[in-house]
């Protein structure tokens, strides 16, 4: 399987080379952080988690969203997803690897991470999240490798893989639920301490993840002979429409509860997000862009004429993805710390080093996705080399 990824045309190698350079640059910046400490980031005593943990959270969602193609295909035998299911599963692998890497780069003493296993602490949600994500990675690696291998042999996947695939469905839900519990169980952070956090995470995951998958499908179709046909694209578009609707609905519920109750410790966080707090408006323009994009995406997705037009659908996917990335990959984590439990507002914004490390980690994910997609498409004869 892997040998298929080791052959390709010059455009393929150019892309791989580019990713390696980005990863290497990210690694060099990480060495700086490793030597100096996390003080090289924008983090501080009040805002102790930032870009890294936010990307982790966002990507757990992308990983979980594979279930949106796995479930229809394997549970309901929805044949049209036959060509894209493996793309979703391998995207999940890349996402979990990025999640782990973001956790690694966020640790103050990364070399002590084995302590999590040496001193297992069932009290801590982080312990359970490690198990959930680790398990999900193993499941998806087993599934993907076997499915790709059987495609190569031209046989249906072995029978024993079916129960593992079915297990991966609730497991996908669990990874994002446990990740939400990581936040929603903290009495110290009223912004996160909401029972709707896990459902909200799932809704944003099931819209943002498939939107990314659909964009990747469009890219593959443009650059290779891969063509899943019209039906799966339209179905995925419909899934995104429903999930995005639920996501926006949940956000509005949060906003209603905070503003109508008027309890300052809840309200202040939302003020920080949408109007600024104590003169700090760091996230305000971002959140408004996110909100406007969400509205645009829903309009584009609701009208059958625009949703059925694949160019417009692609545009809608971009708006969904960017809107959710801002909401989850920027707003969700930082705002939990602003204001802090003492009511103080401290500014946080990622530094250049932090941003470069983040881009480097994303490049690792892109590399994994590329390798898996290349192997799959080569086996199917959908790329020339």
């Amino acid at each position, binding site marked *: 399987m892997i040998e298929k990824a080791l052959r390709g045309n010059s455009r393929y190698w150019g892309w791989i080379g580019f990713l390696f350079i980005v990863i290497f640059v990210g690694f060099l910046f990480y060495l700086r952080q490793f030597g100096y400490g996390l003080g090289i980031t924008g983090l501080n005593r009040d805002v102790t988690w930032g870009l890294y943990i936010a990307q982790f959270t966002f990507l757990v969602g992308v990983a979980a969203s594979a279930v949106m193609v796995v479930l229809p295909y394997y549970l309901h035998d929805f044949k049209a997803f036959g060509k894209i299911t493996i793309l979703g599963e391998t995207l999940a692998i890349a996402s979990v690897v990025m999640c782990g890497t973001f956790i690694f780069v966020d640790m103050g003493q990364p070399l002590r991470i084995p*302590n999590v296993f040496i*001193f297992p602490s069932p*009290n801590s949600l982080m312990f359970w999240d490690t198990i959930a994500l680790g398990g999900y990675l193993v499941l998806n690696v087993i599934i993907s490798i076997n499915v790709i291998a059987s495609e190569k042999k031209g046989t249906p996947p072995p029978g024993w893989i079916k129960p593992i695939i079915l297990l991966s469905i609730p497991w996908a839900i669990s990874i994002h639920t446990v990740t939400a519990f990581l936040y929603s169980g903290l009495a110290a952070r009223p912004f996160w301490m909401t029972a709707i956090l896990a459902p909200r995470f799932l809704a944003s995951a099931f819209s943002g993840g498939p939107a990314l998958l659909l964009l990747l499908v469009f890219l593959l179709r443009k650059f290779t002979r891969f063509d899943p046909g019209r039906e799966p694209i339209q179905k995925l578009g419909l899934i995104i429409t429903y999930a995005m609707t639920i996501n926006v609905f949940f956000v509005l519920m949060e906003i209603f509860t905070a503003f109508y109750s008027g309890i300052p410790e809840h309200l202040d966080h939302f003020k920080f997000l949408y109007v600024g707090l104590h003169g700090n408006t760091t996230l305000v323009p971002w959140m408004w862009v996110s909100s406007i994009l969400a509205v645009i995406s829903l309009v584009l997705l609701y009208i059958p004429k625009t949703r059925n037009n694949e160019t417009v659908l692609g545009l809608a996917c971009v708006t969904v993805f960017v809107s959710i990335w801002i909401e989850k990959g920027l707003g969700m984590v930082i705002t939990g710390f602003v204001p802090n439990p003492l009511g103080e507002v401290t500014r946080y914004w990622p530094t250049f080093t932090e941003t470069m490390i983040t881009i480097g980690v994303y490049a690792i994910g892109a590399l994994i996705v590329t390798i898996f997609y290349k192997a799959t498409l080569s086996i199917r004869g959908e790329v020339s080399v």
Partner: protein
Amino acid sequence: MTIDRRKFIKTAGLASLAGLVGKNVLGQDVSEVIEPGAFDRLAGLQSPLQAQRWAMAVDIKKCENQHDCTKCIDACHLVHNVPEFDNPKDEIKWIWKEPFEHAFHEQENEFQKTELIHSTPLLFCNHCDNPPCVSVCPTRATWKREDGIVMMDWHRCIGCRYCMAGCPYGSRSFNWRDPRPFIKNLQRDYPTRMRGVVEKCTFCDERLALGMLPACVEACDAGALVFGDLEDPEADIRKLLNDNFSIRRKPGLGTQPEIYYIVS
């Protein structure tokens, strides 16, 4: 006081050692070189301070009367090798002063006693009975002792900062960079920390073990800090809390902080 076998042997051994080196190689008298009571403490003759439930009472009025006094903070930060940074981004603090409206966020009101509303109460780790930081720690690098002290193992901490997200009091600090160059006056009898770990007040567990009160309590001449065992009906802190009105930070969270603020 009964002396058990172990203590007797230790005492006898140390006594003979002291006898042997009555005058050291430089001809100095040992008593001038070794601090008074050191042998006693080593021998365990000065027994450690023990309790079932350690707690601290802070008398805001007595503390405020000292105006810009920072003796307790200075003493704590000195004995614990707490680094001093000149920017708030890297800041590490075990004890600090915070305006009342922040210290008692959402417990303040516009027409409160002027002296209270303008006060800057001292903040510590609250050594909660139900510490959220302990629940969230993925390596049990922070834990609660039987006597209620919330401890911290800097050698096990992986620096994930989940405890900082979980603490409702902002009591924990993280070493964003190597703290050692920023320690003004290095104390050799207390460890320094490295970058990438969390630290906080430990009610001076190392001093209690040697029979000494916490450094901040000892440093306060105003008597604004009273430390003791809440399970001991005769303890000063019990009488103080019985006779005065006290408040705690964020009482609604169920953490049961063990720092009491006397506001009467």
